[in-house]
């Protein structure tokens, strides 16, 4: 257990320098450079880009995808975790494996799958077209893509917590007269809340930054189907570097807020 305490100061410092250096060069330096480049010519250029009609629309659309995808995946994730942990049956390994798919498959592939399902001659296209619902190249398709890529987070964070708390508290609540619903709201959910919250934070970060899958199904219609990551890419392609940097910084700030929330949760959980 105490190998670290026994190791020599040289190797200890060597490891620290290596670890911190790696993070500094690969993670921190690009971010600092991004902030520097963005504000090189003052606040005005990036501010203009973000507050342009297209920029604001991209921000709004990003927040909409988060507002739909995250709650859906949270509810689904909690139900799915309960199914996996509390109702053991033979098919569980399959559910478990399928939930991990979005981790394993490239988002671009996921985008293509959606394209095949909802695009022209796709499986679901005729029915939806009749109902007058347009999925591809519009918001529903982008939300679907975001849901797809961020499914695993809540499940993965909730399952171990559910396993750890065990079933005794729930059984105790039952013997005291609580119905299944009451037991869930008063015992199970409060016991797993930090795990769920952690999953929600990770899920939010993923949806905020999703590019590949959304890029395929969005059709890149400026001012209509552009989320912030897509807006950044477009500004970059159009050589509008201050705009690209401004939007990128905004995205990075949103992610930072989310990650700070996560660290606060972690601390609260530990307390």
């Amino acid at each position, binding site marked *: 257990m105490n190998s670290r305490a026994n190791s020599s100061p040289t190797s200890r410092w060597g490891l620290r320098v290596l670890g911190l250096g790696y993070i500094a060069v690969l993670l921190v330096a690009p971010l600092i450079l991004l902030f520097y480049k963005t504000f090189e010519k003052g606040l005005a250029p990036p501010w203009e880009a973000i507050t342009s009609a297209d920029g604001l629309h991209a921000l709004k659309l990003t927040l909409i995808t988060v507002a739909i995808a995250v709650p859906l995946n949270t509810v689904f994730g909690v139900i799915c975790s309960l199914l996996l942990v509390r109702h053991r049956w033979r098919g569980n390994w399959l559910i478990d494996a399928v939930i991990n798919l979005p981790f394993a498959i490239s988002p671009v592939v996921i985008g293509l799958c959606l394209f095949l399902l909802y695009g022209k001659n796709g499986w679901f296209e005729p029915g939806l077209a009749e109902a007058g619902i347009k999925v591809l190249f519009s918001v529903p398709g982008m939300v679907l893509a975001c849901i797809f890529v961020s499914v695993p987070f809540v499940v993965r964070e909730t399952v171990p917590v559910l396993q750890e708390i065990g079933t*005794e*508290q729930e*059984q*105790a*609540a*039952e*013997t*005291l*007269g*609580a*119905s299944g619903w*009451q037991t869930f709201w*008063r*015992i199970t959910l*409060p*016991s797993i809340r930090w795990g769920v919250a952690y999953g929600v934070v990770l899920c939010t970060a993923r949806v905020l930054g999703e590019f590949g899958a959304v890029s395929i199904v969005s059709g890149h219609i400026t001012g209509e189907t552009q989320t912030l990551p897509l807006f950044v890419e477009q500004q970059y392609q159009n050589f509008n570097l201050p705009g690209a940097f401004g939007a990128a910084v905004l995205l990075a700030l949103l992610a930072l807020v989310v990650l700070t929330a996560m660290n606060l949760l972690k601390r609260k959980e530990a307390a």
Partner: protein
Amino acid sequence: MGISVDGANKSFGDFQALDDVSIEVPDGSLTALLGPSGSGKSTLLRAIAGLETLDAGRVLIDGEDVSKKPTQKREVGFVFQHYAAFKHMTVYENVGFGLKIRKWKKEKIRARVDELLNLVQLPGLADRYPSQLSGGQRQRMALARALAVQPQVLLLDEPFGALDAKVRKDLRTWLRNLHEEMNVTTIFVTHDQEEAMDVAGQLVVMNQGRVEQSGSADDLYDKPANEFVMSFVGEVNRLGDDFVRPHDIEIVRDRDDSTEEAMVQRIVALGFEIRVELMLADGTEVWAQLTRGELQRLELREGQIAYLRPVHAKSFNGSPPSNPRGASTPHGSPDGGDAGITAAA
């Protein structure tokens, strides 16, 4: 409210936890389900609470068949070995949980919770969280929580199993007194025969999913139905087909027709009790329990020849022993199992 279980069967996969179990628990009694681990005692208790569904058989509480009733409707108080405290709630909220579910008014809940916290000797700890309590305090809180809803019956699953020896002894006495005060029909599960005999008026000895014997502590000790019960409720030596308790072996200095010759192997002083380990001519090892005075009178020494006379020896030839494990060695069963007096968890 009397409890009876009638022909209960329960399997988990290939493992038969309950094999045609029937018991009767009289109204107002304090009954212990006693047995080694895996004997089915906890499964039986959980089946009475409705936490396990029986494959076959019935559970009756106060004459009413509750087999189909969900746990919530059975009005049983259940106490778990590891307390099952609601960790995110204070002691007050824990104890008041069942009342809140029953939609009691706030003031009534407060009065009842205060009353119970006094009863379990935890006044003033209402605002603590379970993590701020000791094991014994947590278990008393769990008991208050179970009692708050005025259950028809109280079921305790190894309630003191996770506590250290001193706290355990205190709680035993306390539980006995509490039962006298409340007079609610209580069943508690334990693997510790001393605890069972100390607390309970009636004991049910279980082994391998079956009831071996039920009765008072004296019945089980003096008139065990078979070898398993005899070796589980006390220590035992095997002499041929006979079984005899160590304190029922008399050691004398002169031989006669009723004695057997033996060599004194070891003399161990355990305070007041002296344990004398002997080997018979045929190689059988036995041990005898003597008092300090007896040892001094006999002037026994290790390596010496002495003569034994078993009194109150029992033989169970009529009914084959259901568990022939380790009846004769002084250090518990040969496989280090749990049939001995010290029955480890």
